């Protein structure tokens, strides 16, 4: 059911309006579900999980606390923005918790508060409390979104800023005729835009581009569909200055406030150059070799079919949202049904903009630019836009009771699969992220008793390398190559042995070597010196 012009928006999302109290309970259900997911994320590994970005952020926060400045003279800082480190520093100043406790145990629960931010935004977009509840639920069963907000990275802060700024933008649109209120919303909007840029200037700039794209899309739509003219004009009038001012804010931030962030954006002009070198030469040099963002998937999961099963919700969201988005657009263009509301129109535009950015990130990833993982990085933003699109479709759906029960069951199964994927559950994932307390002890031993410059091996991937940074165990960087020149020390734990069995890879041969450390679960071996001159 859609509103007719002039009709109250209670009917926008379809269905009868629930009582306010019912809506509160609906939010509570999603919020408590998010709390369960957060608690499970820590409970699954007893709070002992680690991954690269979490470790890196721990290092940045530690440097900010130690040096008491956002630009640490040690050079240890998050080059894309300072806000997450600053927020964490503030929390540590008040609570006195350890940085690893904050990242591993507290933040996953704090992430549940995103529900309370997402819900009003989605209500503003969809015009329906029911659609907002469904959209928020869909958002919180998406593994790609869950993973980024549960781990110890800046994304939980970033998502709050992004969601809130969209709500403020829509509110400012709605109150454009009331100057003081409009100015208030505009002030708060730019505060959140600044927060987005200060958290990650790359994402902040992408957001500015998305708004600019929405503006252009609105302008194009004005000429294509006469029925879209009013909403398009309204959007243009109010959106025109946003990309300009936000762009200036981003420029000031990158150039003057936090210069390290400008370095990342400085890579953008070279993308075309790298792409052309990649496409036009028959013998590309290694620096321009095509980067395959999907290559890791085959190693990362026990079976590629399991990966696709766990990603089912993602693919359904992709396909469903795309179909609904096209249908909505075509109906509006053809003038069938009702004209779009401002909220739905902006949602439709931002969905298109984020999809376009997703496509562009595939190009950037192929060029091996910006870490080569932009598809992965930009997908959660796309999910944020796709969820309400699908929710609108679902709330307009009128299934029979039995179908409704089946659909609810399917959503429950998708939620479980999503959680398994987001937590890298070792039953299905080869990318183990958990560790033992004894591994921490062993890393500290190496930090205490190895000399600067000595090499050691610990695990087949970044797991213990990240753990070393997270718990600040030592300044020694382990090598991932068990045959590295000069390497004579090997840290072998029960987890590494189990992992070697899972991956079908041999544990470094240490049987006939010195065994210099034993804490029950972990042993450290040192290769015997072959000549009297080796130490």
């Amino acid at each position: 059911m859609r509103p007719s012009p002039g009709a109250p928006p209670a009917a926008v999302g379809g269905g009868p309006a629930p009582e306010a109290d019912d809506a509160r309970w609906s939010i509570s259900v999603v919020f408590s579900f998010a709390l369960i997911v957060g608690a499970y994320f820590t409970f699954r590994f007893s709070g002992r999980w680690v991954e690269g970005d979490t470790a890196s952020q721990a290092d940045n926060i530690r440097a900010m606390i130690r040096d008491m400045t956002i630009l640490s003279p040690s050079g240890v800082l998050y080059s894309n923005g300072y806000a997450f480190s600053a927020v964490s520093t503030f929390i540590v100043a008040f609570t006195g918790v350890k940085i690893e406790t904050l990242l591993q145990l507290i933040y996953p629960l704090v992430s549940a508060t995103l529900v309370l931010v997402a819900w009003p935004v989605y209500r503003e977009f969809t015009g329906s409390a029911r659609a907002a509840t469904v959209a928020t639920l869909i958002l919180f069963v998406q593994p790609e979104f869950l993973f980024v907000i549960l781990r110890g990275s800046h994304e939980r802060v970033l998502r709050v800023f992004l969601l809130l700024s969209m709500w403020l933008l829509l509110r400012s649109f709605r109150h454009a005729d009331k100057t003081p209120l409009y100015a208030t919303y505009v002030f708060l909007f730019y505060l959140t835009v600044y927060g987005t840029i200060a958290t990650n200037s790359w994402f902040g700039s992408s957001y500015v581009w998305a708004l600019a794209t929405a503006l252009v899309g609105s302008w194009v739509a004005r000429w294509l569909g006469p029925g879209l003219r009013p909403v398009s004009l309204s959007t243009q009038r109010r959106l025109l200055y946003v990309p300009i001012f936000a762009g200036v804010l981003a420029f000031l931030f990158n150039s003057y406030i936090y210069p390290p962030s400008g370095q990342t954006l400085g890579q953008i002009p070279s993308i075309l150059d790298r792409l052309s070198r990649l496409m036009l030469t028959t013998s590309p040099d290694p620096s321009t070799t095509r980067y395959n963002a999907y290559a890791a998937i085959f190693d990362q999961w026990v079976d590629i079919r399991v990966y696709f099963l766990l990603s089912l919700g993602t693919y359904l969201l992709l396909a469903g949202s795309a179909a609904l988005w096209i249908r909505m657009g075509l109906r509006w263009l053809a003038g069938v049904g009702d004209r779009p509301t401002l909220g739905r129109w902006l949602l439709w535009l931002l969905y298109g903009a984020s999809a376009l950015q997703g496509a562009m990130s595939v190009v950037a990833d192929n060029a091996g630019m910006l870490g080569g993982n932009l598809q992965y990085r930009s997908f959660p933003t796309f999910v944020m836009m796709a969820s309400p699109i699908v929710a609108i479709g679902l709330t307009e759906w009128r299934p029979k009771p039995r179908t409704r029960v089946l659909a609810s069951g399917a959503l429950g199964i998708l939620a479980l699969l999503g959680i398994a994927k987001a937590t890298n559950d070792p039953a299905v994932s080869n990318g183990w992220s958990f560790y033992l307390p004894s591994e921490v002890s062993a890393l500290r031993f190496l930090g205490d008793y190895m000399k600067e410059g000595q090499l050691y091996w610990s695990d087949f991937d970044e797991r213990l390398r990240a753990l070393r940074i997270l718990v600040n165990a030592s300044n020694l960087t382990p090598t991932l190559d068990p045959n590295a020149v000069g390497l004579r020390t090997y840290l072998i734990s029960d987890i590494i042995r189990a992992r070697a069995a899972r991956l079908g890879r041999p544990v470094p041969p240490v049987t006939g070597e010195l065994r210099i450390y034993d804490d029950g679960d972990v042993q450290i071996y040192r290769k015997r010196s072959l000549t009297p001159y080796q130490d």
Partner: protein
Amino acid sequence: MAISERTTTPAPTVQTSVPAEADSPTTARGRHGWWDLASCAVIAVLALLVAGASPALRTPIGLAAVLYVPGFALAAAIFPTNAQIDRVERVALSLGSSLGLLAVLALILDKVDHGLAPESIRSAVVGSSLLLLVLAIVRRARTAPAAPRTVTPPNRARPSRAKRFTQAIVVANLLVAGLAYVLTLTTQPAAPTEFYVVGPQRVVLDYPRDVQVGEPAEVIVGIHQTTDAGGTYHVEAATADTVLASLGPVTLKPGERWEAPMRIALPAPGDDQEVVIRLLREGQPDPYRYLRLWLNVHASEPA
């Protein structure tokens, strides 16, 4: 306060999806009163007062003082009543504005020497929160008194089945999440007991390789006791059939570290002789931990 679908007056040309006014005028001020501002002020002040207390006490108060109170104070200063935003929107705005304020505050503090020291941070956050709360109080006090609050008789009817089901889910979810979290916090294992051997310089270097028969090779053995219990140990170095050296008994308190030099002399020549250094725990027949060295033992040269 309306959280559900609400009515609005659409703009002349564009339908807006959400109503302009969140609450009815009758609830504009009466709904809030002063308790919300007062409780935020209490949290902010408490966060300062408990600065030296244990993290268990400081954590919930500190999190609220950092992640909620500053934004709530800002939102209350801007929107002193519920006339423009409803409760859910106020919560969202409080959470987001807190983070935005912290981003700006960090930038300002960074310009001051040692601005990001814990004391400066606490003072700045609490100070700005209280300032905004005072502004909010002034603005709320100046707001024209609302019409007398409509007193709605409490609804004695039993909640609908769907609502009861929803409430049960919320309670169950909170219980499960709470249980999982408490289990996580309370089942943190202690650090293990570590047993190690290092070279004479106390680094992972210079392990003995070639020795003469009867010539003692020196290493340093160490024990780092687990943090949850004490223990008494013996350390002995042995070949397959001969005990070469022993140390102890050593009694260690939880978390205590012990290191001592150990001299190992082998009685017979031969290459690749395995020396096992065992950590024997009192009351346990089998070695608790063990280490291994390899030595090439050469016959003594004639004097």
